[in-house]
């Protein structure tokens, strides 16, 4: 019996070749996924550097400046939480595109510093990975693209469904909401969001 298997039959050879091919394909797919993953993080990081530059320009010139010529959005604010060393440039419009590059000021919500609620959203694994560290009472400093600075302090945190946020963009008073996906360590997308609510400091 053993003599039968000392030499490999062509059938066996091709079966092995098949397994090797599958294995190589899987490896290739694996690299693609890794590459994609790295790309998402790299893009998020690089964009913030360019955005920081564009934002400074915006403040100096008083006009919206695109961070790169084909950017479909412009920086509108900088948020900073001194205690945890967090900082990010916020973009206009909450398209998937904008959020790949930075936190986004959700459409239809107030401009920071104006009456109503400004809602800023970002991905929990890139720009808003720090959100889980924010505590009640933390000072959130928002610099607008016209150079004006507004201070908010965090008053509340809660978990909500994306379409039942209860956030009113036109609520009386001056509010800021930072939102990201919840739970923080989930792998797939879910309906839940983690929101940090803040009030303007007079």
């Amino acid at each position: 019996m053993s003599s039968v298997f000392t030499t490999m039959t062509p059938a066996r050879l091709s079966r092995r070749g098949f397994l090797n091919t599958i294995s190589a394909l899987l490896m290739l797919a694996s690299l693609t996924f890794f590459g994609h993953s790295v790309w998402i993080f790299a893009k998020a990081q690089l964009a913030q550097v360019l955005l920081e530059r564009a934002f400074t320009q915006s403040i100096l010139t008083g006009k919206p400046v695109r961070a790169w010529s084909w950017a479909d959005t412009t920086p509108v604010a900088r948020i900073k939480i001194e205690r945890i060393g967090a900082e990010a440039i916020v973009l206009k419009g909450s398209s998937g595109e904008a959020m790949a590059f930075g936190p986004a000021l959700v459409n239809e919500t107030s401009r920071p510093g104006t009456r109503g609620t400004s809602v800023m959203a970002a991905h929990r694994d890139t720009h808003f990975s720090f959100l889980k560290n924010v505590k009640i009472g933390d000072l959130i400093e928002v610099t607008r693209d016209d150079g004006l600075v507004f201070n908010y302090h965090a008053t509340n945190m809660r978990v909500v469904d994306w379409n039942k946020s209860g956030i009113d963009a036109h609520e009386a008073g001056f509010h800021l909401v930072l939102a990201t996906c919840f739970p923080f360590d989930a792998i797939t997308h879910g309906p839940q969001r983690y929101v940090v609510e803040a009030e303007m400091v007079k």
Partner: protein
Amino acid sequence: MNAITLHRSLNYKKTLYKLVIAMIATCMTAQAAFAGARLVTPNDMTAGSLLLKSSEAGKYIAAPAVASDYTVNISGPTSRTVVTQQFYNPSESWVEGVYVFPLPDNSAVDTLKIVSGTRVIVGEVKEKQEAKVIYEEAKNKGEAAALLEQDRPNMFTNSLANIGPHEKILVQIEYQQTIAQSSGTYDLRLPLVVAPRYNPAPIVQTVDFGASKNGLATTKNEAPQPPVLNPAEVAPTNPVSITVNLDAGFALGEVKSAYHKVDIVEKGANVRVVTLSGVVPADKDFDLTWTAAGTAPQAGLFKETVNGHDYMLGFVTPPVVATNNTAHPREITFVIDNSGSMEGTSMPQAKDSLLYGLAQLTPADRFNVIRFDDTMDNLFGSAVQADADHIAQAKSFVTGLKANGGTEMLAPMKAALVDASPNDKTYLRQIVFITDGAIGNEQELFDAIAKGRGRTRVFMVGIGSAPNSYLMTRAAELGRGTFTQIGEGTQVTSKMKDLFGKIGNPVITDVHAQIFGSTAKITPEQLPDLYRGEPVMLMADSGSLSGVLKITGMIGDQPWEVKLPLADAAQGKGISKLWARRKIAELEVASTLGQITQAEADKVVLKTALDHQIVSSLTSLVAVDHSPKRPAGYVLTRADVPLNLPSGWVWESVFGNDSPSQNVLHTDQKAEAEFLQLAKFDPAKSPAPATQVNLPQGATDAELMAIMGFILAMLAMALQFFARRKAVLA
């Protein structure tokens, strides 16, 4: 290996395969979800920083914007274009978006669709008034509705009712057109913006009411004038993307875009895919030209049968025969437009063109120069000998011209048409009319040419980034001349050279076409004279087309004749629509020339347009989505989509220094935010819609991707291990 191990290994394998398939499926789903999420790319070029005055005094509304995509499929001598317009309403109110946009002047528009979510609502061609009524009813009921109306053959208005706050709605328009060809160059021109037009102040009625002609009806409707953005204050809006699938039908030589950067991909000898490099604002014409690698076809016949009726498109390029154009001295009247719309890049181009023309004159010729804005100067009063003195005088006059003021085109055209000696056969009488055609009273100009043309031929030279091609083409047709388009300073010499090559004598006169073997009607009935390099273009219709098409003419003193067997005609889609469009143009020309009355023309125009389901001066396309949209109690506000100022134009010269931005109020963002806030709390206003904020997706796929990558890598290694182990086992 015994039976048990074999069995186990098979089981192993099955499990393994299952696992692999499951993994791949999971990955693909994740990939699809990722792609889906990325597809949502709202057009952020619409900055929403524009406010329009609304009908209510002191109230403003954020201006809607339109992003357009043009997909042009060229197949030989015809093309079909799909225009997708995405209306975006950046305001908090329900809005009726009104977008004025241009299309080629020979386009047969036959399709209008509203794409609402997954539903597609297809529009119908109706008589203009009826379409308007259907639209207004739907509008008042709060339903989404689109109405496409023709203002001019090259200018359309698309109204879209009931766009919700921050909503985007897609409207698709399709049209058929013939491709222009001259001297072996094929030309697709896609106008992208309607230039602001000058509508002259009402002139004193000079029409003799005794005459039966009531052609004035068409002069009453002024061209609509949407708000125009001042480029100094606002970033360009209304982004455009273009894809041209060019199948020339012959091996292609050079393919070139005159004014836009494009990417050209070769797909075989006859085919190119041309795409605009990136997205551009709609502020100038797109112009694509191509030539044949070898000799371009000299003739073509295409046929379509619709409802048992045959329609045909045919063209023949006559042979080039050397003619002696200088034998006849010429009398050329140059007319140059120095109105405000010419300021910027247009004026130098116009001047250079005229100076080129002056340089072509010989002492045997006679000439005159007329300039106009809302005033005019007739340099010599009438034609003078083209001697050195006069030429020098004219040069200095032209060089000193400055662009300013309105565009009163009628008086200079009339002055140029005045012929002191109509029976003089020594001189060929010609007018070279240099303008951007930014006027709204086209018909008055056409009437003037039709009435006063006599022996004079009118050559139109269109200047600038967005000239009024309808005015140019029709004026040249009525004046039996040609239309030359100059879009950039660098084109002046080549284009003017081409024009002066043509301008001598028409190469071929007395062109007649006839079909032997079946009763068919040729459109147009009277074929125009041909200039150098121009083909005979004609259409025909018959119950059943067969037999031979015979075209005759005179090349100089020599008779010319060509015969085309109709049996050889290739099938061509949309030929019937092109026939209908040409028929309508012919009827309009005939009515302008007084050969038929306006009423007679209208009757046939309406029938033709309805039979062939195309938009015309008397028919519109209307589409209604009957599912209710706007809740009762919410007010609908009309908002014109503001247009870009054509590229190269100067704002102040058109609108003056006192009007910073017509009825567009550009506010800084601060004021705008404040305004919007105020508007919200205005108790007089209808209750603001429930404004709960929906939170966007807050995680990337990075981690998922990484984990997928990891699992796949492990799987790959497991497989390797498995394969090796088996080898070792063996």
